[in-house]
């Protein structure tokens, strides 16, 4: 149970017999090691307070507190009782090897018991446990058997055995292999005399500790590995919420609430760290406030006050005033407003994210009787209590329903939050049944009928009335957590390698059960035949630029250009749809992407681009000039492709006009060198500029520049540029 703390000793046989195996089978040592690794992993990620120790026996050396006079030899306490960590996992990976000695497992057990007793002194543990992993091939010393059993009982230490073979499937017993399933290694091989004797001893010990279910704590390695592959489910200590259920002011019943169902979250969040140092201290986040003006003037946080929107009005409302005027109530409360029929509280109107179960306090049987009377009365009348629920003074009160719940071994009220008027959205949808165009025919309905038949997940067994549910969602561990821990574990143990694929068992757990898949084949085919489903071609929401400008989108040239372009860009980028406007980092690329996406009209994208160009040009720096030129190149290239020259030409002309005023001669010179001129009629039909004019556009300028700017300066600039590139 959650909230309890246990101490556990993993006691593993590493003696030489553990490495023996039939051909083609994994040796017991490897299996046992896997069991231990999986177990420790789970513990590490569960992050509870459980402590672990590791004792190895059959080691070449001896290291344990009982090592005296040749007794308790070849037993090593590898790790003392402490909270497990990755260090332990690494030690198991790298330092636990098969060794060449053999040791008495009974001696090892005594070492573990001693360790538990000495190392838990002064600490409080709810459970003490020893898990022994061995193939039982050594002769065990039975001299002190009774003393050992007595000690185990007294100290309250529980035992678990993990063996390479099933305990109840030995050669004499036989017969039971049906339940355990075939294929366990060791079963076919036959056990040695020592193993048989030891197994009897194990049974004797286990049964004397627990007469009835003692043998349930004897596992095979394979079963254990299978069960341990799942990471532990997240457990939390249930918090008691004592309160009184009140009906009017005269009748109250003491109750205690516990959260019973709620969407569990991972306990840890991702922390942002610097990629180089992996230190979170190197990264700082800061929030600043600024006015919504052109300069984005920053203001100090102290110079801001709090306000709220009331429709179109913004109302300044200080925290102090807010606290004073806000809704206040008397705190903790579970007060009945009235009772109503269960069927008036609709399942789909449950709100909130939890179900709270209300019991009577443990020590108050009068409250128990009173509550029981209410629960049973509601249950018999098929009614629920509508209640006002407030967790405490600081939290907002809720309205909710308390359902009666009568189970075999307990009774309780189950509280669920219900909606407020403000939460509801009354949507109306067109009727489905009364619509002749949509209503299914009888043959269609019967196809659905047989589909449902074939896909029932709850089956009645032939012999008894019990229903068997073959897909219980609430038995599936949250796959997100499983995957999360799997990846974390992988990264911790194998840094630098890519993340592993999903575990096959997890994948399978989320799929339709095989029986169902098989059975529903034919009915599904039938559905496919009876119900034609045609995906509707999406109408483009926005007209393409070509459509807008009425240009030759159909022309083969344009198409070809499109095809060529495809390879130039990172398709992933486009698919991500991350570009929504022409940014300042790489405006030319954004521009091309946007044109390609056609999410915005061509004119608008061009405007965004020219805006960026103007921004860039306001910094008189060759680096920015260079960037501007790539923008203009992109502008020109796309304009030609789309057969729309007007926007580009008019921009370039206006740019040229503004050169002298803005002292951008140097920039213009670069433009001239790159021969970026107007788009002529020859390139785009709709252009009003002739080829000659286009050439002239720069030539005239060239002459001027030659006269105006000394050539030395020119080359200097180009050199700088080259350096930069």
């Amino acid at each position, binding site marked *: 149970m959650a909230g309890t703390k246990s101490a556990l000793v993993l006691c593993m046989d590493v003696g030489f017999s553990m490495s023996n195996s039939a051909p083609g089978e994994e040796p017991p040592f490897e299996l046992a090691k896997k069991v231990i690794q999986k177990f420790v992993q789970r513990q590490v990620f569960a992050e509870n307070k459980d402590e672990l120790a590791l004792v190895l026996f059959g080691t070449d050396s001896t290291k344990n507190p009982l090592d005296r006079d040749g007794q308790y030899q070849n037993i090593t306490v590898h790790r003392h009782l402490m909270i497990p960590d990755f260090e332990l996992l690494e030690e198991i990976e790298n330092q636990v090897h098969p060794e060449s000695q053999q040791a008495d497992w009974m001696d090892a057990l005594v070492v573990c018991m001693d360790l538990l007793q000495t190392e838990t002194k002064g600490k409080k543990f709810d459970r003490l446990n020893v898990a022994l992993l061995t193939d039982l091939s050594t002769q065990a010393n039975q001299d002190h058997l009774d003393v050992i059993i007595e000690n185990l009982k007294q100290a309250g230490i529980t035992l678990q055995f993990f063996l390479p073979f099933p305990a109840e499937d030995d050669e004499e017993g036989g017969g039971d292999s049906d339940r355990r399933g075939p294929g366990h290694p060791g079963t076919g091989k036959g056990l040695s005399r020592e193993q048989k004797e030891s197994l009897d001893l194990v049974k004797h010990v286990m049964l004397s500790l627990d007469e009835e279910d003692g043998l349930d704590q004897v596992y095979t390695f394979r079963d254990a590995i299978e069960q341990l592959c799942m990471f532990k489910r997240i457990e939390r200590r249930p918090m008691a919420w004592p309160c009184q259920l009140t009906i009017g002011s005269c009748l109250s019943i003491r109750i205690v609430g516990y959260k019973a169902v709620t969407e569990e979250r991972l306990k840890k969040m991702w922390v942002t760290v610097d990629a180089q140092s992996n230190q979170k201290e190197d990264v700082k986040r800061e929030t600043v406030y600024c006015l919504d003006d052109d300069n984005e003037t920053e203001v100090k946080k102290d110079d801001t006050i709090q306000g709220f929107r009331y429709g179109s009005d913004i109302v300044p*409302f200080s925290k102090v005033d807010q606290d004073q005027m806000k809704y206040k109530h008397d705190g903790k409360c579970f007060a009945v407003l009235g009772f109503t029929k269960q069927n008036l509280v609709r399942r789909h109107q449950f709100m909130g994210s939890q179900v709270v179960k209300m019991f009577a306090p443990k020590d108050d049987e009068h409250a128990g009787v009173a509550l029981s009377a209410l629960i049973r009365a509601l249950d018999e009348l098929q009614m629920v209590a509508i209640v006002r629920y407030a967790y405490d003074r600081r939290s907002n009160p809720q309205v909710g329903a308390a359902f009666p719940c009568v189970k075999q071994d307990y009774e309780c009220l189950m509280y669920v939050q219900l909606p407020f008027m403000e939460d509801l959205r009354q949507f109306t949808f067109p*009727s489905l049944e009364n619509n002749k165009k949509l209503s299914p025919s009888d043959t269609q309905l019967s196809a659905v009928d047989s589909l449902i038949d074939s896909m029932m997940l709850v089956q009645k067994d032939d012999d008894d009335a019990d229903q068997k549910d073959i897909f219980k969602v609430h038995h599936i561990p949250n796959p997100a957590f499983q995957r999360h821990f799997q990846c974390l574990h992988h990264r911790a143990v194998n840094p630098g390698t890519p993340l592993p694929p999903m575990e096959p068992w997890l994948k399978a757990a989320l799929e339709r059960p095989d029986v169902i898949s098989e059975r529903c084949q034919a009915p599904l085919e039938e559905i496919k035949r009876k119900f034609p489903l045609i995906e509707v071609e999406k109408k483009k929401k926005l007209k393409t630029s070509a459509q807008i400008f009425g240009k030759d989108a159909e022309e083969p040239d344009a198409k070809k250009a499109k095809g060529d372009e495809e390879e130039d860009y990172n398709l992933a980028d486009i698919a991500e749809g991350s570009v929504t406007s022409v940014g300042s980092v790489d405006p030319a690329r954004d521009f091309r992407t946007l044109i390609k996406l056609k999410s915005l009209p061509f004119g608008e994208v061009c405007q965004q681009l020219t805006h960026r160009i103007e921004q860039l040009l306001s910094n008189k720096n060759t680096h920015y000039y260079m960037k501007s030129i790539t923008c203009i190149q992109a502008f020109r290239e796309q304009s030609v492709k789309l057969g729309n020259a007007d926007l580009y030409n008019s921009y370039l002309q206006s740019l040229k006009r503004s050169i002298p005023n803005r002292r951008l001669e140097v920039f213009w010179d670069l433009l001239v060198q790159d021969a970026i001129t107007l788009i002529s009629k020859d390139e785009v039909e709709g252009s009003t500029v002739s080829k000659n004019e286009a050439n002239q556009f720069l030539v005239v300028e060239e002459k001027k520049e030659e006269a105006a700017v000394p050539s030395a300066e020119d080359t200097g600039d180009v050199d700088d540029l080259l350096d930069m590139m």
Partner: protein
Amino acid sequence: MAEWNAYYQNEDEDEEQEEGEQSGGDYKVTGRDSLVFLVDASKEMFIKGEDGEPSNFDMTMQVVRSVYTSKIISSHRDLVALVFYGTEQSKNPRNSFKYVYVYHDLDEPGAKRVQEVDALRGEKGARLAAETMGSGETSLGDALWCCANLYSDIKLRLSHKRLMIFTCRDEPHRGDSAKDRQARTKASDLKETGVIIDLMHLMKPGGFDVAPFFRDIVSQPEDESELGLHLEPCDKLEDLQKRVRAKEQKKRAMARLNLCLGEGINVAVGIYATAVTARKPAAIRLYRETNEPVRSKTRTFHMQTGSLLLPSEIKKAQTYGKKQIVMERDEVDSIKKFQDPGLYLIGFKPMEKLKTHHHIRPAVFLYPEEGEVKGSACLFSALLMKCSERNVFALCRCVSRRNYPPRFVALVPQREEVDEGKVQFTPPGFNVIYLPYADDLRTLDPPQCPSASQIQVDKMKEIVSKLRFKYRSEAFENPVIQQHYRNLEALALDMMAPEDTEDLIMPKVDQINHRLGPLAEEFKDLVYPAGYNPESKSVAKRKTAIVGGVAEKKPKAEVPEDELRAHVQNGTLGKLTVPVLKEACKQFGVRTTGTKKQELIDALTTRLTDTV
């Protein structure tokens, strides 16, 4: 800088929201919703009902008010207008229309407008209406034309345009066919620009006949079966409110997904949130000097170098078992990805397998999207009928968005239900119930308690039956939100005090006591022994706690100034305790950022040596 902002904006919330918080994102769709109330102001509207029932006009104003306030709470960005027709006075943008009075043009509703609508309510309201507007001739055509101008004057992009006509006259022009024709033309002009026209027809003696005139005015329903026109006229406020409310909100799908039954069988469905927890809206930061809103920008930068960090310069980490495990940002995303978004059918289960307590979040609603995959509605409808008939639910695996891990959901069939007025109150479709995983169920240790005897149970049954009522989900207002808005209203309108809110989820203790009468005592006698007081223990505890709390806080730690100065001079401030130092800081008005002892001492020392 703008891009930085955009990039980092959601980074932090990522984890917080994880999933589940998918609701409320409706407003991603660009453009605003708009709603025009076109209200008949003719004399007939002001006739009071028998037994002092409110007039149609009064009823309409109440509805308009409630729409205004609910818009303010739930969707303040919607635009609303209030226009009267059949008035004596005219008031419209260019005053080009007679008998049309634009009381409110299209804008976000605010406190002032609510007040102005309030003024038109009741006896006084009728008088005010008569004074300011009066009742005159009717030209619905002009009124519609004027409304069209309201729409076209708006510079914002409108995504949903609706116009509601409130009237009790089925022949507004009394058979003037020219005016009728003009109204029809104007109505069809409006409809062509995407405006949906609804008729909220009110009761009149002799019944309201939709057919002769209004049938051609209102928009055709979304499909032939929508019962828009066969409705009975409203004669109750509640009905009218319900009708308006059903139309007033534009339904938007949170997501459009495929419901996959098997290989190649994909039914397109939309997911709708029909119940979303309404919260108090977040506060807005305002600049103290001008009360204008400020924007916040969050930046991530390197502590040492002070440079802004690119996304590629950031990684994510968690620590387990004393080891820091680091991943790339996109790896963190990829861990969450299992499948592409969609619903995948696993199988069916009988309804009784859906446990009441398997509840982890509010349900959503599923309706077919015929526009995405043709044939969806038919298969969906067949599934719905059969599931409902056989009392089974469909179990599906659901990935609601990209990079969201899967959840299992129960698709619970819901047949359409209409009331006597043929207004739909339950839409047809599947309710999607989210099911818990093993991790979501907590292990509890229920106490062993004796069960009640049948006599005790029967007594409680009497109590239960005394306090029966008919639960309606829309009956309870959230007192926290209501109070918040009343406060804002009071501040916005410079009212002396906020209007009182009635806390509807407070038990009516006196009534309950009265109804129970002696039953409570009788029950207590049956279950509690003499002298047992269920309230005693915890009450006693709380009292001592309060007393203790006060007692602890009382002795205020104050040190005389001389003594403090002496400490400063001798450098012995360290002898004082932190609470004392804090108090001293307050005393001298020293602002301290830290709470560490040394920081306090430093701050005090600087201050006191300065002034010496």
